[in-house]
């Protein structure tokens, strides 16, 4: 390799991969960093909104193997509420104190010798709740009759601010056309495949908590956690594991659990490990904010967008948890998007609802903003009768206008937006697509084309969070600004290169890219650079901005490493110059050797130069202060606090993206087929194109998921309906279409490699690109993702696609049942026994006890009433149901009607069944049944798909056992029966997939 060839910019293979591919990489749940670990399980609220009347942990505490139980009273005694920007009256503890405010909120923590025992003990904690009317919809939260979630604060509106830039009203007054669009953007969860995990240890001798967790930053949350724990910075040592199984932002939300488990460890007097399970993750980790936006655009007669009027209502879930309401402000300084808009007004509100608290999820605040903006642009194009791409080309910032200062204060430093849009049109074959659309429409098909644009921000200026405060409030509070990156380059006494970085990666190949960066500066091979990315707050290379968010790696962290590498190279050159007899700046560092073209001596090994600085410290070259351990910070001075008019540079670098899709919808099924998807990015220089491609494809998968499949869904009472991967559907390989990636490169002058970021990318833009195409194909204006076939099918018929979350299904005609539950079914079974015998068996409690799977007891409480205790296991979670059964309409031996109502830790269930018995003519019986049931509480979160399966399996098992009984066999009892029920369940879960 010659001196001019660089490692940066090349698609080298990743150094992370070998350990990951052979099972040697160590993730959170693989760690046992201290002796004497015990395990925690968390009891969670089955209600979304309820007063907690009492918590009795005595029985749980007595279970052998249980060490301690942490209760809300302990949490209040040992910690403070987690602070937020807005008000002390909005108290947020990491568990429910007096009142549970969302489904799945922690209520108590059991600490035991192993995880199985801890989970067993959860069943023994007795909590009395008094449910209240939940507030689920953000618009309902505004109503004066809505339950106030935080009574001390007094209102569900926890934040409110208005802004004005330029003179929007004057522009609206003179506009030729005004176009409005309202969107209620749903919440999603990034669902990394590795869930949250925390190990906490408390050292009573010095009051120090040491915590290992897969928290990913921002480390600005470290002081917030310290404050909650009432300790100084050095008394909360945070350590990240060597590998992290994905995050996409959401592992920011681990920090309340850091506090909770730290307290658990303190109470238990033992180090405690907690690994979140998937059900907990989907219910209670975090989700993006939901946002109801009304956006209006004022256009002149030629289609120039003059002004925007935005009203945004942010749903932050049950608590205002830092950094929110930041999602509302992440895009604030780029509210004009890629367009030349000089007049903007914004009306922001944030409300609390009985839903999971919000936090970082891929795109943080981006999808919620671009969806309504880019829908509005399409509605405007339609109103002008103009091509959607043409309207956008007319309005984007022109290439000769860079650097372009937006009216809200950002400086878009470089770009060529027109070129990117044209590249998208060309790659997609736009004219041909338009012709295809023509043809398809003539054929009566639903073919649509969608286009959308976004500016993506990189390296966020911390100051943007403070836009939630007025200028006067800001003056009184601690100023915040900056977006620093840090790295340290070390060469040890044997000359090995070690680099510490503060980006806390979750799979993005940071170690590889960083090795490329440092290799270029000090003239060694990337494979000779060992990059340490685990962060320890007792180590040196971290700061308050550390972490993996807002594309800070490709912008500020790599810039910091370049600086540190340059400092190291300066020392190496000085040492070499002395031996080579040349000036330091004549020394070249290449391929592990230092040489000087005109020098008198043979080249010297770089390794040896580094050794020399360690071993011969009495003889350092001029201007060199010691061996190589170079810490560098890259901290752009342009990123300052907002001015008095709320203008600020929110980010260091601004990328651009244009997506284009062509799709066809099958109107009979509502299924969408993607014909072509093109995504064009200008993210400046690419540090490792293969890694970049991985980011684009991964971002697309998230955007496609949010557009087509995923949504955190609640029932009207706040019960979570998307509690498993069966109902929270992430795209798998067959669903994901191919995506055609194009790069346009205009380097950023603001970063040392000219790189910008693109980690959010398609996750921000794909949902609205798809929506625009679906609107184009169907003519439907009002579209809310996800575009599941069923939802789209209803939308295309002008029906409410979400009726099932709002009200019960209408009664089916001809049904014998009165309860119109969500779980319904019917069936017929042939039984090889006379009808009277079947009848007698079904009505004999003693016999039924051995037939009903998981039945522990059944007693008659009257002639037509019984009480049964039945254990049901679902997806590894078991509960004992005390069920009251009543028999009606008994027509011996032909038919009867049953109703039942059961209660357990898993929640409530009620059902009704109608059973008929007919003789089959050959001495046997045909039993027909029809049932309808409803469940609430924790069990409901398993979602309909899974529950339907469970009911089918339980019924199949019941009839098997009934037949066996009538054949004179004894169905096995107790544990093995449960195990076999489980088994059937597992088979079902394994399913056809």
């Amino acid at each position, binding site marked *: 390799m010659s001196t001019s060839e660089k490692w940066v910019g090349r698609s080298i293979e990743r150094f992370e991969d070998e350990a990951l591919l052979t099972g040697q990489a160590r993730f959170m749940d693989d760690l046992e960093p201290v002796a004497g670990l015990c395990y925690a399980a968390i009891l969670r609220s089955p209600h979304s909104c309820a007063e907690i009347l009492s918590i009795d942990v005595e029985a749980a505490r007595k279970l052998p193997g249980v060490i301690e139980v942490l209760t809300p009273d302990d949490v209040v005694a040992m910690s403070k509420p987690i602070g937020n920007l807005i008000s002390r009256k909005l108290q947020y503890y990491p568990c429910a104190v007096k009142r549970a405010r969302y489904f799945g909120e922690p209520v108590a923590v059991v600490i035991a010798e192993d995880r199985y025992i801890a989970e067993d003990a959860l069943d023994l904690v007795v909590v009395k709740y008094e449910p209240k009317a939940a507030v689920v919809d953000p618009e309902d939260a505004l109503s004066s009759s809505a339950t106030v979630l935080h009574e001390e604060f007094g209102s569900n509106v926890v934040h409110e601010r208005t802004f004005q830039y330029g003179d929007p009203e004057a522009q609206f007054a003179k506009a030729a056309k005004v176009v409005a669009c309202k969107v209620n953007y749903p919440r999603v969860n990034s669902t990394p495949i590795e869930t949250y995990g925390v190990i906490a240890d408390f050292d009573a001798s010095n009051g120090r908590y040491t915590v290992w967790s897969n928290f990913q930053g921002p480390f600005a949350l470290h002081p917030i956690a310290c404050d909650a724990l009432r300790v100084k910075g050095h008394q909360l040592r945070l350590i990240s594991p060597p590998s992290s199984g994905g995050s996409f932002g959401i592992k920011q939300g681990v920090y309340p659990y850091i506090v909770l488990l730290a307290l658990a460890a303190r109470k238990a007097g033992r180090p405690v490990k907690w690994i979140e399970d998937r059900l907990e993750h989907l219910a209670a980790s975090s989700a993006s904010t939901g946002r109801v936006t009304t956006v209006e655009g004022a256009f002149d007669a030629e289609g120039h967008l003059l002004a925007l009027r935005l009203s945004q209502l942010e749903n932050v879930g049950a608590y205002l948890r830092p950094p929110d309401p930041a999602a509302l402000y992440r895009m604030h300084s780029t509210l004009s998007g890629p367009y030349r808009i000089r007049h903007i007004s914004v009306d922001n509100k944030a409300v609390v609802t009985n839903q999971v608290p919000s936090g970082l999820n891929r795109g943080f605040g981006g999808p919620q903003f671009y969806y309504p903006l880019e829908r509005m642009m399409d509605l405007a194009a339609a109103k002008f009768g103009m091509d959607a791409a043409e309207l956008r080309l007319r309005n984007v910032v022109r290439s000769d206008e860079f650097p372009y200062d937006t009216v809200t204060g950002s400086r878009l430093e470089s770009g060529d937006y027109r070129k990117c849009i044209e590249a998208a049109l060309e790659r997609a074959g736009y004219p041909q697509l338009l012709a295809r659309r023509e043809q398809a429409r003539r054929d009566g098909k639903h073919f649509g084309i969608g286009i959308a644009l976004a500016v993506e921000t990189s390296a966020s200026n911390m100051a943007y969070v403070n836009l939630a405060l007025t200028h006067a409030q800001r003056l009184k509070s601690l100023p915040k600004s900056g977006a620093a990156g840090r790295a340290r380059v070390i060469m040890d006494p044997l000359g090995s290169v070690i680099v510490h970085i503060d980006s806390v990666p979750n799979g993005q190949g940071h170690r590889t890219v960083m090795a490329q960066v440092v290799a270029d500066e000090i003239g060694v091979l990337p494979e000779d650079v060992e990059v340490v990315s685990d962060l320890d707050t007792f180590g040196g290379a971290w700061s308050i901005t550390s972490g993996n968010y807002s594309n800070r790696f490709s912008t500020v962290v790599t810039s910091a490493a370049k600086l540190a590498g340059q400092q190291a190279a300066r020392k190496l050159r000085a040492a070499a110059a002395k031996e080579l007899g040349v000036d330091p700046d004549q020394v070249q560092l290449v391929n592990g050797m230092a040489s000087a073209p005109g020098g008198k001596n043979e080249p010297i090994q770089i390794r040896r130069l580094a050794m020399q600085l360690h071993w011969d410290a009495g003889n350092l070259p001029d201007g060199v202060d010691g061996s190589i351990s170079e810490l560098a910070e890259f901290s752009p001075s342009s990123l300052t606090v907002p001015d008095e008019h709320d203008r600020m540079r929110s980010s260091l670098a601004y990328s651009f993206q244009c997506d284009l899709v062509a799709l066809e919808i099958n109107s009979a099924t509502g299924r969408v087929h993607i014909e072509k998807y093109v995504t064009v990015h200008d993210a400046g220089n690419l540090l490792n194109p293969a890694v970049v491609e991985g980011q684009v494809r991964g971002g697309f998968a998230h955007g496609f998921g949010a557009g087509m499949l995923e949504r955190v869904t609640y029932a009207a009472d706040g019960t979570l309906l998307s509690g498993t991967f069966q109902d929270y559907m992430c795209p798998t*390989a067959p669903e994901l279409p191919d995506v055609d990636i194009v790069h346009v490169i205009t380097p950023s002058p603001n970063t040392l490699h000219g790189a910008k970021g693109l980690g959010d990318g398609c996750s921000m833009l794909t949902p609205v690109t798809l929506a625009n195409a679906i609107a184009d194909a169907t003519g439907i204006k009002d579209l809310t993702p996800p575009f599941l076939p069923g939802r789209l099918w209803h939308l295309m018929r002008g029906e409410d696609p979400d009726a099932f979350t709002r009200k019960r299904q209408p009664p089916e005609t001809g049904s014998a049942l009165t309860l119109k539950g969500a779980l319904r079914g019917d069936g017929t079974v042939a039984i090889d026994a006379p009808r009277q015998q079947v009848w007698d068996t079904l009505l004999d409690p003693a016999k039924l006890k051995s037939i009903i799977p998981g039945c522990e007891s059944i007693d008659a409480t009257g002639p037509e009433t019984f009480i049964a205790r039945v254990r049901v296991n679902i997806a590894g979670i078991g509960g004992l149901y005390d069920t009251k059964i009543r028999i009606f309409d008994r027509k011996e031996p032909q038919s009867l009607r049953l109703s039942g109502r059961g209660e357990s830790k898993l929640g409530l269930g009620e059902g009704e069944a109608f059973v008929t018995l007919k003789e089959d003519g050959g001495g046997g019986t045909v039993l027909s049944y029809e049932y309808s049931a409803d469940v609430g509480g924790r069990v409901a979160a398993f979602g309909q798909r899974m529950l339907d399966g469970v009911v089918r399996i339980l019924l199949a098992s019941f009839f098997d056992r009934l037949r066996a009984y009538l054949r004179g066999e004894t169905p096995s009892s107790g544990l093995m029966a449960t195990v076999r029920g489980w088994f059937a369940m597992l088979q079902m879960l394994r399913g056809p997939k």
Partner: protein
Amino acid sequence: MLEIEAGEKTTIRFTLNGKPVQAQAESRMQLADLLRHVLKKYGTHVGCEHGICGACTVLVDGRAVRSCLMFAAQVEGASVVTVEGLSNATGGLSELQAAFRRHHALQCGFCTPGILASATQFLQDNNAPSEHEVRDMLSGHICRCTGYTGIVEAILMTAQKRGGA
């Protein structure tokens, strides 16, 4: 049928990555927990514990199964292969693993051990798969990082290299 009391541990004997092993486990213990927390083979990952994500997939007698949906006791006498046992004889990356690295088929790598297990069986049963078949096989796995393109390529390339296609 064997009746086991709740809480009682039994000894399970089986072959793990070619070596005979034995371990004590309660009847309710899942295979994934046995492998990870009793036998300390941390390469097998757990992403959902309800059978959807596929991260926990291992080979039991050559068949890819979800170790979160199997009881430890069920592998008595079986041969179990985890990601730790998939490398080639000299401990280097197998052809499939090397193809994953070459095609950037992983990012965080948390889903990868399970996908490698499924792909191993798949390639044994199907030496000249189409892209459609590969994607169909992958439908039992969730990868949140990569968008699957590299994974599909790596599996197709491995098949091609082995002379199937």
